[in-house]
């Protein structure tokens, strides 16, 4: 049994009775999930998934309070275990002061969520999604902690464009972002022999512009992000100069149907210096996904997506340079608080989600996977 599961269950039992309590104005909310993964051929996400793995637990609790009509403060603590990633330590998911001057302009500062594409800032809120795994090309779960939030601030607001033109929502941010020492990138670096002496990080800035069109339920938008990374490794250094990432997207919801799609281009030039030697690795990631879902009944939700990742700087016929994933998902809500999900994946390519030490005999180019999850949120 995963070691985090008892802790999360205890958290839920203790806090479940609160059911989103408002104690002297302080709002408390939380969620906990337990996942299961079974895969053919390869071990996925640093789990021994080919034998079936329950090493997938997630939990968070948030506290927030409105000090005045305009000022709100809050904190969310998060704990996760994903195979060999994560661990027993509570992390600050976000902590911020949020001052809303008007409906057109507000700002928040602290550790704030980073908007990239449709789902980046909410990708760890499992309860709001049909999917167990969001499209891994754009939202890799093993590296989500790197992109989720940054230290700094953002401005935000909404600009009504009139009855016939919809509404424009904007967010712009700047700050500092660092790698999660228990996350996927650091583990992959460790597998390659790079051991970090300090937490690697760098400046980040960007924004998101989202247009709620006059066609009800139809939203289009685009995000931009600039991120650099520097870190000291034993015997040398790692440097990724500022790279520009952009991500246009669209979503449409009408009645029981939901459709969404996103494209992203994400280049990175990685330079590793070890003593007198310098190693350079350039990647040019082209990412897109398309998804559709249908609300079958009040409790049942089903859907499918295709997720595509390819490194254009390499030989795109090699499985290590692409990842293509068809997913089919179903969700059942037992009530407003408890839900269960099941999902099938048909994976082609080995570029994402695989680790050397859990696949010591190499990787097969294709793999199928079954994922299941139960969750609780209040």
């Amino acid at each position: 049994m995963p070691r985090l599961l008892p802790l999360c269950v205890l958290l839920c039992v203790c806090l479940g009775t609160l059911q989103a309590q408002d104690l002297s104005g302080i709002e408390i909310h939380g969620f906990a999930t337990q996942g299961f993964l079974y895969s053919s051929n390869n071990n996925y996400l640093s789990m021994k998934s080919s034998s079936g793995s329950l090493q997938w637990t997630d939990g968070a609790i948030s506290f927030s309070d409105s000090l005045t009509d305009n000022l709100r403060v809050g904190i969310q603590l998060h704990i996760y275990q994903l195979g060999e990633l994560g661990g027993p330590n509570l992390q600050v998911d976000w902590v911020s002061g949020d001052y809303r001057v008007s409906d057109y302009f507000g700002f928040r500062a602290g550790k704030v969520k980073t908007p990239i594409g449709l789902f980046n800032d909410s990708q760890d809120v499992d309860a709001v999604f049909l999917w167990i795994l969001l499209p891994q090309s754009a939202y890799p779960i093993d590296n989500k902690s790197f992109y989720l939030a940054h230290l700094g601030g953002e401005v935000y607001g909404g600009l009504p464009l009139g009855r016939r033109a919809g509404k424009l929502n904007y967010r712009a941010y700047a700050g500092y972002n660092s790698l999660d020492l228990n996350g996927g990138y650091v583990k992959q670096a460790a597998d390659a022999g790079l051991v970090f002496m300090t937490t690697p990080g760098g400046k980040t800035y960007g924004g998101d512009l989202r247009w709620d069109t006059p066609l009800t339920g139809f939203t289009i938008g685009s995000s931009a992000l600039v991120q650099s990374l520097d870190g000291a490794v034993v015997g040398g250094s790692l440097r990724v100069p500022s790279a520009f990432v952009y991500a246009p997207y669209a979503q449409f919801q009408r009645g029981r149907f939901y459709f969404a799609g996103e494209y992203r281009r994400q280049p990175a030039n990685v330079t590793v210096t070890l003593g007198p030697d310098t190693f350079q690795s350039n990647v040019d990631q082209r990412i897109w996904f398309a998804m559709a879902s249908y609300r079958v009944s009040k409790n049942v939700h089903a859907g499918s997506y295709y997720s595509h990742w390819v490194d254009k700087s390499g030989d795109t016929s090699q499985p290590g340079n692409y990842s293509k994933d068809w997913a089919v998902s179903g969700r059942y809500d037992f009530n407003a608080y408890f839900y269960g999900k099941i999902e099938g994946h048909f994976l082609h390519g080995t570029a994402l989600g695989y680790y050397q030490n859990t696949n010591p005999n190499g990787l097969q180019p294709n793999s199928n996977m079954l994922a299941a999850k139960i969750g609780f949120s209040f």
Partner: protein
Amino acid sequence: MKLSNKIRWLIIVLGLLGCCSAARAQDVMLLVNKSSQISEISAADLRAIYMGTKTRFSDGSHAMPVTLKGGPAHEVFLKNYLAQRPDEFRAQWRKAVFTGQGAMPRAFDSETALIEFIAATPGALGYVSHIAANDNVKLLTITK
């Protein structure tokens, strides 16, 4: 005799249709604290306030939307005024709460508790299926 039976069935069918029609027409009443200066609200503003994208009434005063935890009045309100199902509404707010972008509207188990809260809280806005005379709340009308 046969004709009388047919008429009886016709009356029953028409009666049932009438009931269905009445059920479809079921609506809720919007309430606001008595101290509020507004007496009407546009459908767009109402939706924006409940979706968290607007925090003030048209007169500039602070709006505090509250909801019922469930039940027919809650579902009717979400469907008629926000065009949402309860699960969609819940997911929208959970997303805001867990990303640090908003605080979920306070929810009440009963209409009585909701009315009492609105009566005691300036700026509070809510809905009920029916209301007895209450000096501390007032009804809002909705404009297009």
